[in-house]
């Protein structure tokens, strides 16, 4: 028997156990003189032992279990039927309704805020909303430039020159 044959037998045994007596003896003889197959066989045997150890005997459940299951099913029956697709439809409808309400609120707030801002400041607010800070700064200082002391003096000098 070659190592390959032995491993093929062992693989089957690991699952269903060994049956043929002659095969078993041949494998046993091979394992005695082949450390490599012996090592592999040990692994498979351990795997088999551990898996088999998790087997449990067929037992009767506690008799009260049937009554508990039946009671739970009865409670379930008392609830209104709410099949899967109805649940999906209800969920989608609630999402759509929420989105519509949020949208209406946003538009309303936007209109209200715009109405509260003086017309001269709307450009400034728009620039801020668009994160165009240089434009916002220009708009803030645009009016102040006219009242600047230098610009007033400059305008007076220009005016006196013209009158001459």
């Amino acid at each position: 028997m070659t190592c390959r044959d032995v491993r093929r037998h062992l693989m089957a045994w690991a699952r269903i156990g060994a049956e043929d007596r002659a095969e078993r003896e041949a494998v046993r003889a091979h394992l005695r003189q082949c450390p490599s197959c012996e090592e592999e066989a040990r692994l498979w045997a351990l795997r088999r032992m551990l898996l088999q150890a998790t087997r449990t005997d067929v037992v009767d459940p506690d008799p009260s279990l049937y009554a508990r299951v039946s009671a739970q099913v009865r409670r379930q029956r008392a609830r209104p039927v709410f099949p899967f697709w109805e649940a999906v439809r209800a969920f989608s409808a609630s999402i759509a309704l929420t989105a519509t309400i949020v949208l209406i609120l946003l538009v309303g707030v936007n209109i209200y805020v715009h109405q509260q801002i003086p017309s001269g400041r709307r450009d400034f607010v728009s620039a801020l909303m668009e994160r165009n800070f240089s434009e916002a700064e220009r708009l803030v200082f645009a009016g102040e430039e006219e009242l600047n002391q230098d610009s007033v003096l400059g305008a007076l000098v220009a005016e006196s020159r013209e009158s001459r």
Partner: protein
Amino acid sequence: MVAETRNSASELVPDDEELVERSLAGDAEAFEVLVKRYGRTVYNVAGRFFRQPEMREDITQETFLKAYQALHTYRRGASFERWLMKIAVNACYDELRRMKRRREFSLADLAEDERVWLEEALAKPAFELFEQQQQSEDAAAVAEKLLATLSPEDRLVMLLYERDGLSTAEIGDLMGWSRSKVKIRLFRARRALDKRLRRLLRAARPTSAAKARAEGPPSRRAEGR
């Protein structure tokens, strides 16, 4: 017309299909008959994956509740028991997925008794291990810890295929998986389990004392069981 069978007392016993029809029509007692008829089977299917009685009871309750909710999907003419088993195995699979998975497993995770059992087992020739039929609580505890490191899919296919002897087609049918998926899972599950076992084998080289115990008469600890 729905078939009915007679039991030994010549009493009419409604078959599964009739009970399903009656349950769907709102007959509360009809489903309770199905619960009594298959409660034990479902409980023992849960026992293939979980040892704790409370967990088996939870799975049984969940299975019948799901079956009741999906009763309208049961096809007439198909085996009700098989349909119920699919729900039960899938309920077990869901529970395995909910359970916290161990990341690693080493010799240090074993209790003293479990370690002694492992050393004694490894001291025997491999052929004897194959022949060994005796099951022990220590082996079951080691197996539980080892299986807890596998993914739920790997754990499920290892138990159904390697331990229970189901075919890949049967597992595929139960889980709604293709045969190729079962085979790939099985390959990965074996590789994952063997990797952990090899590490365990390297770490648990039997001591000379364990070898002596394994070769000699049964230890006092084993006799005490």
